[in-house]
C-alpha cells in the first residue's frame, strides 16, 4: 500500500498537459544552466565569485537568509489550520508545507554552493565528522533546518497517505508534530538571525532586534509568495482556493509589513540620532562611505517598494482589489528580498572590522547558480503541489489504483 502510494504520487507528478511540461522544461533548463555554472565554480574555486576576504559572504548567503524566512512562513497557514481549525485554510495548508520543503531545500543548497570544500560536507555529520554543537550557530542552523525539513515532509506525507487511502487522518496522532513544527518554524528563522547577530565584530548585525526583524519580514515575504502561488494554482488546476484564505494572508502580511517598517525606522533612529562608529555599515548601505555606494540605489528602491506595498495593504478598499493586492505582494516580495538579502548580508562586511570599504558585486556565475537553485525550488514545489492536488482531489487514490482506471488530470 505504502509503495503503491509513493508510486502513484510520483507518477502523478509527471502527468500533465503541454503547458505543465513547458513549465517543467523551463525550470529544468534553468536548473541545468545553474549546474553548468556550478561546475565552473567547482573547477575554478570560489574565485569564480565576486567574494573576497573583505566581503566573504555574498549573494548565496543573502538568498539563504531570505529563503529560510519563506520556509518559516508556512507556519502562518499551519497555525490557523490546525490550532484554530479554519476549514478554508486547512484546504491549502499542505501546499504551504510543500512550499516550506522547497524553500528549506533551496536554503540548504545555497549554503552548500557557498562552501569552499563541498567534498568535505560529511565532516558535519556527528560521529563520522565533528559537529560543533551546541557551540556553533551554523551547527544549530543545520540541525533546525534538517529538522524542519523532516517535519514538513513527514506531516504532509502522513496526511496525504490517509487521503490516498481515503481515510480521515488521525488528528491526535499528528497534532503533536504540528505543534512542534510551529515552534520549529519560528526557531529556524530565529536561529538564522542569531547566525548573524552573534557576531560581535559586525555591529550592523549585532542587534537584539535582528530576530524580531527576521520574523516580521518573513511574515511579509512568505504570505506574499503564498498569495501569488495560490492564485496561480487556482487558475491552472481545478483545486478550489477559497478567497477567505487570501484575505487572511493579506491581513497578516499587512500587519507584518507595518511592523517591519517600524523596525526599520527604529534602527535608523538609533543609528543616526547620535551616530557612532557602529552605524558605519548603515551609513554605507543608505548613503555610501568614501564615495562608494553601490547598494544605496537598491536599498532605497526596496524601501520605496515596501512603502507603496504598505499603503496599498493598509487601506482596506485598495487591498480588497485583487489586482492591487497582487501588486503589493510583488512589491513587498521584491522589497524584502533586497532588504533581507544583499541589503542585509553584504553591509555587515562593509566596512570591514578594520575599517576598510571594499565593495562586492556578484559575478555571472553566482547569478546563474542562484537562478538554478531558485529553479530547483520551483521544480520541487511544482512536483509536490502537483501530487498533493491530485491526491486531495481524489484523482489519485488507493481505490482508483485498484480499479485500474487511469485518473484524469484536469490541469493544463
Amino acid at each position, binding site marked *: 500500500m505504502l509503495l503503491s502510494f509513493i508510486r502513484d504520487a510520483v507518477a502523478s507528478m509527471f502527468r500533465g498537459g503541454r503547458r505543465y511540461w513547458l513549465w517543467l522544461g523551463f525550470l529544468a533548463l534553468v536548473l541545468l544552466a545553474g549546474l553548468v555554472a556550478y561546475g565552473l565554480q567547482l573547477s*575554478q*574555486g*570560489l*574565485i569564480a565569485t565576486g*567574494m*573576497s*576576504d*573583505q566581503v*566573504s*559572504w555574498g549573494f548565496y548567503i543573502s538568498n539563504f537568509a531570505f529563503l529560510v524566512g519563506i520556509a518559516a512562513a508556512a507556519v502562518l497557514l499551519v497555525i490557523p489550520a490546525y490550532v484554530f481549525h479554519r476549514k478554508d485554510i486547512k484546504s491549502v495548508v499542505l501546499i504551504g508545507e510543500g512550499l516550506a520543503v522547497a524553500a528549506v531545500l533551496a536554503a540548504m543548497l545555497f*549554503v552548500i554552493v*557557498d*562552501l*569552499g*570544500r*563541498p*567534498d*568535505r*560536507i560529511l*565532516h*558535519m555529520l556527528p560521529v563520522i*565528522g*565533528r*559537529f*560543533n554543537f551546541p*557551540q*556553533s*550557530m*551554523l*551547527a544549530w542552523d*543545520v540541525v533546525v533546518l534538517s529538522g524542519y525539513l523532516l517535519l514538513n515532509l513527514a506531516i504532509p506525507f502522513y496526511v496525504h497517505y490517509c487521503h490516498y487511502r481515503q481515510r480521515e487522518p488521525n488528528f491526535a496522532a499528528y497534532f503533536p508534530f504540528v505543534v512542534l513544527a510551529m515552534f520549529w518554524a519560528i526557531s529556524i528563522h530565529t536561529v538564522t538571525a542569531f*547566525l548573524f547577530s*552573534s*557576531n*560581535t*565584530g*559586525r555591529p550592523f548585525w549585532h542587534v537584539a532586534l535582528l530576530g524580531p526583524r527576521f520574523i516580521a519580514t518573513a511574515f511579509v515575504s512568505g504570505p506574499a509568495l503564498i498569495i501569488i502561488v495560490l492564485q496561480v494554482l487556482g487558475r491552472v488546476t481545478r483545486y478550489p482556493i477559497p478567497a477567505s484564505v487570501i484575505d487572511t494572508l493579506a491581513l497578516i502580511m499587512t500587519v507584518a509589513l507595518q511592523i517591519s517598517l517600524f523596525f526599520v525606522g527604529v534602527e535608523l533612529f538609533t543609528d543616526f540620532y547620535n551616530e557612532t*562608529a557602529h552605524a*558605519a555599515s548603515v551609513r554605507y548601505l543608505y548613503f555610501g562611505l568614501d564615495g562608494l555606494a553601490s547598494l544605496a540605489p537598491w536599498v532605497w528602491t526596496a524601501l520605496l517598494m515596501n512603502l507603496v506595498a504598505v499603503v496599498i495593504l493598509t487601506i482596506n478598499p485598495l487591498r480588497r482589489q485583487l489586482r492591487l493586492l497582487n501588486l503589493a505582494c510583488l512589491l513587498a516580495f521584491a522589497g524584502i528580498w533586497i532588504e533581507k538579502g544583499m541589503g542585509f548580508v553584504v553591509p*555587515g*562586511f562593509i*566596512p*570591514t*572590522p*578594520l*575599517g*576598510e570599504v571594499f565593495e562586492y558585486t556578484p559575478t555571472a556565475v553566482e547569478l546563474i547558480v542562484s537562478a538554478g537553485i531558485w529553479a530547483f525550488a520551483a521544480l520541487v514545489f511544482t512536483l509536490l503541489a502537483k501530487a498533493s492536488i491530485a491526491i486531495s482531489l481524489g484523482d489519485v487514490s488507493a481505490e482508483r489504483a485498484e480499479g485500474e482506471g487511469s485518473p484524469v488530470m484536469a490541469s493544463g
Partner: protein
Amino acid sequence: MSNLQSETIDQSRRRFLGAAAGAGAAVAGTAAAPAWGGSTLMDTMGSFFQNHYQRMSDEEIADAIGRIERRAKRRYDVDIICRDQPPQEDVVFGYALNISKCQGYRDCVSACVRENNLDRGSQMEYIRVLEMEEGSRNLEHSEHYYDPDTVPVEGKYYLPVQCMQCDNPPCVKACPVEATWMEPDGIVVVDYDWCIGCRYCMTACPYQARHFNWREPQIPSEDINRNTNYLGNRPRPRGVVEKCHFCTQRTREGRQPACQEACPTGARIFGNLLDPSSEIRYVLANKKVFRLKEELGTEPKFWYFTD
C-alpha cells in the same frame, strides 16, 4: 646613513642566498609526474578519508604528512619537510607591539608571506599595517593601501594588525566542524584538511585576521619555505581558511616568529606569558598597554604599547 638600513641589506642578501639555494634544490630534484592514478589516486583517497587532526593516531599523522610532502612535490616540485611540532609545556605565547616604534615599513608583512608559504599575487597576507591619523584610534580613518615614497608620513602612525590569538576566540566557537581550535600554547590553529570552507569564522573574527584560499595558492617553487609544520605553514589546499599561527614551525622550536625577526625597528616583542621574567611580561607590567577591541570580550593575547 643608519645601521638600521645596513641590517636590512644584510637580511635581503641572506634572503637572496636562501632563494638561490632553494632554486638549486628545485633544479636538482627530478621532475615529478603529476599523473592521475597510482600514488596520486591513493593520496586523494587518503585525503578524502583523513580524520580530524586531534583524532588521528601517530601513524595516521605520519601518513598524512607523507601525503602533504608528496603533494608539495607534485605541485611545486619541491621537497618540503613537514613536521608535527607539538606545543611546549608551560608555554602560552603572547605578543606585544610598540606602536611608537613601528614606522610602517611592512617588512613584517613580506617576511610573513615568504616564511608561511602564502599565496602570492592574491591578497593572502596575515598582517595588515594600518596607517592611522595622529590623534585618533578610529580604524575607519585608517588607510590600508598607503604607498608613499617614504614612511613614516608626517601626521600618521602605524598599527599592524594580525591574528590576536584570542583567549576567547569567537572564530573557534563559530566553526561548525571544529576545524579550528586553540592549542595548549594559546595559538589558534586550523586543520586545513578538515575545514569545509564555510567562512563563518571569517565572519566571526572582529580583526579581519582570517583569510580564505579563493584559488589554488600560487607560489614560485624557488620561493617555497621547505621547513614546514602541520598546524602551520605547510602548503594549503584551495577552498580553506588560514590565518596567522605565530609561526608554529619556528616558535615551537624556541625561535622568534618571522615578523619579529624581520622588524628593523624592534617594535615586536614575542614571548612566553607564563614566564614572569620574559620580555613580554615586563612590557605588560611596566608599560601602558592596550588591546584592540578589548570590549568585545575576545581576550586577545596581542598587546600594543607605546614608549
